Every structure is written in structure tokens, then in C-alpha cells.
């Protein structure tokens, strides 16, 4: 977790949130989230019916992985806003890194409100998620 007494606008943080994403992890996410769409869970359907090269991850799995980096950085239960745009698909075998940059710091009497710009990239440095997050840390 970051030290709120030492942070500055422009500070960067990063964490690898998944290494070599497996089809099984995608199925695990399908099972828990309830989104069983065969484009995520059924290789035969994804390839033969829709024409994708394979199944691919739920956008919300990638957002969940991204959120893990943010909660590790900002602390449990401190997020106030978290919003993303899904810019590219995530495929089995991808490794993803989430990067966050502080864009704003507002100190109030007993708490600090931090806003960050957030990007998750794959192993080819292609952004799969771009967005922002705001946290209140007391």
C-alpha cells in the first residue's frame, strides 16, 4: 500500500495482475460471476460459430484483475470510483500488467482523496483497459 505522506502527482505504480492467463481461470470467472457466455467458456462455439481464434476473457475479469492492483495499492475498502473502457480483448496465454499514475491529490482534515489514471496492458504493451479510479484514504 502507498504511503500517503510521501505521494506526489505523477507518481507511477505497477503490478503484474496475471501471468499466462488460462482458459480454466476464465471458466472460474464465468462460474462465479454467472456470465457463462460460450464466447468465454466454449472454444468450439467461439471458433466455429463466431469465428474468434479462441475463447477470450470477460471484460469484467480484466477489470477484476485491474481492481486487485488498485486495492493492493490503495487499501481495503478505500475505492470510491472505478471506471474503465475495454480497449482490446484478452486471450488465453496473455500476461497483464496494471499501471496507475496519480493525477490528483486533495488533502482534507482527516483524509486524502487520490485520483489515478489506470491502464492495463498485455505482454505486447497493448492497452486492454484504460480508465481511472478515486480513493479516499484516512
Amino acid at each position, binding site marked *: 500500500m502507498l504511503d500517503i505522506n510521501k505521494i506526489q502527482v505523477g507518481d507511477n505504480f505497477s503490478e503484474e*495482475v*496475471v501471468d499466462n492467463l488460462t482458459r480454466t*481461470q476464465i471458466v*472460474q*470467472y464465468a*462460474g*462465479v*460471476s*454467472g*456470465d*457463462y*457466455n*460460450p*464466447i468465454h*467458456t*466454449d472454444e*468450439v*462455439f467461439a471458433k*466455429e*460459430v*463466431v*469465428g*474468434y*481464434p479462441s475463447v477470450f476473457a*470477460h*471484460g*469484467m*475479469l480484466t*477489470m*477484476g*484483475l485491474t*481492481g*486487485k492492483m*488498485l*486495492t*493492493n495499492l490503495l487499501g*481495503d*475498502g478505500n*475505492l*470510491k*470510483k*472505478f*471506471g*474503465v*473502457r*475495454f480497449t*482490446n*480483448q484478452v486471450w488465453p496465454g496473455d500476461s497483464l500488467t496494471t499501471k496507475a499514475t496519480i493525477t490528483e491529490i486533495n488533502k482534507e482534515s482527516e483524509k486524502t482523496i487520490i485520483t489515478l489514471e489506470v491502464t492495463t496492458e498485455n505482454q505486447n504493451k*497493448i492497452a486492454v483497459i484504460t480508465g481511472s479510479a478515486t480513493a479516499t484514504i484516512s
Partner: protein
Amino acid sequence: MSKKSMPIEKGHIMMFARAIGDKNPIYYDDDYASQKNKNIIAPPTFIQSSAQFDPDYFLRPKIGEPWFGSGKTPTGLVKSEEKSNEESSSNNILHAEQHFEYHLPVCPGDILTPTSIPGKKWEKESKRAGLLKFSESVTEYRNEKGELVITAKSVGVVTEKTVEN
């Protein structure tokens, strides 16, 4: 309790944390949480699994109904259904954006009830995927006291062509 209400359950939170590869004990360990004077809480995107509690959610196989995934054949739908516009376009629905605002923590024992508000709709032309039709929906999740816990805004897009990158 509305038929779509979501009871927040400890085991469900633990399984969700496993699926996103998050080892943080705040998502499963009561002793750890009480040492920090906290409760077990749900990860920030957990509310998405409220789909489990929507009896009509279209991306879950329903008992006794055909499912569009593969079995003996690559899709379980018969030809006439497969060709209907609605079904063929549903293959090209992608999630474009997701935004959450957190008003209160989500803890085991809470019962959250969603209220959906349809949002804007717009279109855009794209080289990669043809005509894109965007639609927005806003869902407010309230607890049993009627307090607003999470506001979720989702943007979906229907693409003309299948997108690969």
C-alpha cells in the same frame, strides 16, 4: 426482497477473489478482518456477479431450455433460431465500458436490490468492426435499509463484424 435481490455471501466472495487471483485475506478470513476492526468485504467488481441472482439472465443456461453453446454440434440452436437477427447479433455484443461508484462497503449478510435505469444510445462507424451500436444502462444497488451502496454504469456495444485484435 425483489426476485433479483442479491444476498451477499461469504463463500461467494471467496470464490470471486480466487477467480481474479486475489490472495487478500480481507476477502475470506474473519480473524484477519477482526484484527483490523473490519468485516470481510467484497472486491470492487464483485457486484457484477449479481447476474447469478437474476432469474432471467440470458447468459446462464436455463434448466430445460436450449443453450446456444456447443454439444453434439457447435451451437445448440437450431438453424431457424440461429439465423434470427437477435441471436446472431448477440454473438457480437461486447462490453465497452464499466463504471462503479462506491457509497458503502459490501459485506456478507447484506441483501442488495438492483434498480436499472436505461441510459443513452448512440452509434459510431469503426474501421475494425463496422457500425457500432452503443447502449448504456445504470443500475443502483440498495441495501435493506434503502441506502445506496453501489451505482454501476455499463456500456454495451453491438458490432457489425466480429472483432479480433
